[in-house]
């Protein structure tokens, strides 16, 4: 099977999602190009996290298609999707609180069977996230929010994914860690991993993203290159206003 380089890595097309009677997505279409950072912006309860869950197979859409690397993800279980090469940094990090930092990071390699290479990747994570070195045997639940975010990112990288999906990676972090996390996302991306991230903090996300989509109560209302969106008055009005004031 040949996949052309122009074909997007991930494509959601005309996705409609419901929780019971309530519709959360209306004909949602999003593409993530190979090697790109794509950002999904939107206010509270606009359906951002649900988009992540659709990609990961945690929520099933009522209609629509989700293609990853040329193959449909619809009907696959979450573990199967993970094995296809998608890793996640969930909302609020969701570490295994009673397991050690080391165990948490290694859980990220759960789908791999090459022990030696996994050990090497763990070392690599410690150079990427040097602070975690002294914390390896500590309970993950005892770390600060910023440190937990580092663990969550290291954990996601351990599966050697082609795509990482991140749900509000900067939420609740101190400004110092926010910069650090954005920097790391850029680094990860430069190593060839595509990134799809959800953010409320539009101005920061647009700094590092290639493309962005704006979601409003389940509908994409704007999309395009991050550079152009940054100057788009509609984004300004809708989303940047709040964060600039803050």
């Amino acid at each position, binding site marked *: 099977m040949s996949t052309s380089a122009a074909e997007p890595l991930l494509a959601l097309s005309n996705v409609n999602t419901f929780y019971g009677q309530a519709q959360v997505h209306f004909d949602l279409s999003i593409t993530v190009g190979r090697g790109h950072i794509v950002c999904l912006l939107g206010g509270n309860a606009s359906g951002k996290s649900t988009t992540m869950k659709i990609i*990961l197979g*945690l929520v099933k859409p009522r209609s629509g298609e989700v293609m990853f690397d040329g193959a449909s993800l619809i009907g696959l*279980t*979450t*573990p199967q999707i*993970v*094995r296809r090469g998608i*890793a*996640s940094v*969930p909302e609020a990090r*969701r*570490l*295994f*609180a*009673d*397991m050690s930092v080391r*165990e948490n990071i*290694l*859980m*990220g390699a*759960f*789908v791999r069977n090459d022990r030696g290479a996994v050990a090497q990747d763990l070392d690599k994570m410690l150079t990427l996230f040097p602070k975690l070195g002294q914390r390896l045997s500590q309970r993950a639940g005892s770390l600060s929010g910023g440190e937990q975010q580092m663990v969550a990112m290291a*954990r996601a990288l351990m*599966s050697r994914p082609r795509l990482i999906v991140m749900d509000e990676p900067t939420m609740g972090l101190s400004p110092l860690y926010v910069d650090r996390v954005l920097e790391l996302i850029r680094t990860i991306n430069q190593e060839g991993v595509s990134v799809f991230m959800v953010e409320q903090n539009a101005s920061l996300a647009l700094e590092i993203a290639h493309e962005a989509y704006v979601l409003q109560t389940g509908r994409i209302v704007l999309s395009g290159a991050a550079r152009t969106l940054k100057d788009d008055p509609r984004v300004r009005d809708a989303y940047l206003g709040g964060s600039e004031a803050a």
Partner: protein
Amino acid sequence: MSSWLDYTINGLIVGNVYALVAVGLALIFGVSRLINFAQGSIYLVGAYIGWVAVVQLHTPLPLTIIFVAVAAALVGLIIERFGLRPLQNSVRIAPLLATIGISFVLDQLVMLTFSPNPRALPSQLPDIRFQIGGGTIGPLDLLIAGVGISSALLLFVFLRYTKLGWAVRAASQDRDAAMQMGVDVNRVNQTVFGIAAALGGVSGLLVGMYYNQIDTAMSLQATLKGVVAEVVGGAGNVPGAVIGSLLLGLVESYGVAVFGTSYRNLFAFLLLVVVLVLRPNGLFASARQAPPEPLTGTFIAPSRPVRIPRWALAVAVAAFAILPLLPVSFYILQTLINAWLLGMLALSLTLVAGTIGQVSLGHAALLAIGAYTSALLSLTLNIPVGLAIVAGGLMSAALGTILISPSFRLRGHYVSIATLAIGEIVSLVILNWESVTRGPIGISGIPPLSLFGYDLISPASVYWFAYAVMVVLALLQSRLLGSHLGRSFRAIRDDDIAARAYGLSLNRYKSLAFIFGGFAAGISGGIAAHLYSYINHETFNTQQSILALTVVILGGLGNVVGAIVGAVALVGLPEMFRIAAEYRILIYGIVLLLLVRFRPQGLLGTI
């Protein structure tokens, strides 16, 4: 006279046995947030498989243990695959009810296969005892300790050093996150059910050998003890379950040393209630930790209730009222009298479990309180029976509510455990409080039903009496449900946090529900006492609590008409088809399983 050291040794050995059950419960709770009420049944199955191996196949001891572990694990895998996995996306109550149904089915299958009579299970070990200090210890004690310790070690190694063990730990801490790491949660569930069942089965085998006797009553006892130990240690906490078990074994053993054998279980359940009230997360959880999810949220299947036209209801009520005037057999009247009594209990439970969402598993205790009050008042104080029954209802309302009030702060499955324990405590107090309740002898010669000086002896008069009381209670309850109070009850059931935010006092409303429910159940118990003329501490047992729950689910939780229809169906249908008594419980279990799987909202729908 045994020494303290002997009691300590005995406590630790028994604690080891409990640990084998409780660790399985903890593993399952960790991964599925489910209290597996079928765990005791697997223990029972293990004991009987062991009996087959020892007595019929004459296997050597190591082979017996392996044989039991493998066979029990298979049973566990079957339960997980066919009983629970189909319920993954159902309401929270579904898997809990399913394990109750499975446990009924397993217990009854064992009983039908092996007869309910106890059997001897020889220990296969030499009957010698070694002196140590002031006590003695035998080879079987050492075997039990050895199995307990080596199981714990194996489990530790498994959880800490194998990939599947990591998956189990990760899934028990955050199921969704574990899935996002590629963990197959079904496989994890299978694993923990297999391990839990193997340990539980071996535990049953060892207990059978320890007491050289097995019988089918072991099952419920094992579940209860395992749950106590697990909750004391902190639900889902595996090392906690081990420590909780040893503690439980010691508390029981010392309690027996001081007060006597009949107090053994009383200590177990008191320990449970104390821990639930003071530290609902168990002794070893940090104080600030929230109770493990999801013990919150809606606990019942939402549905639109079936609308029954008023005239149809009126016709049905009238038809049953004139039934005794028609040439119906004594047998049919007798059956329907039982249905009306069960109907009253179901009214009570459907209010408590359905309308306000407190799934009580100890409702038979309310019957017992009403029955004993009414029987004793009429017998010793010569109070007229009609009045005594009302007093029974009031006593059940008051005492039942007070006894259950410690569980008001609990939620979801914990309410079920607490009410189960409180029900057991009531029955144990009745057993032990001989000066008032006449203890194990029970109360005989209870005067027959009478009203305003007229004895109700004929089946028709008893029928009318029970029927009229039930109809009145049902009408009152319907009024209640339509009122502001009923709406508050449902608000608490659907979202207790929001209800509290709106300023509803949860304790007050839960009390009101239990007062009304306690009254209805107490009246039912009172009538039953005068009808049976003899009662003892086992007349109103957990099996009846579960039967009432099945009735209520069959009719539709919260549904008044449903409760009565359910009672008539569950009492009447087995009679109609002349099903032998020993198959009935099996059928109730199957009905419960089928309902949970295919019609969780019941026949008439939840309200």
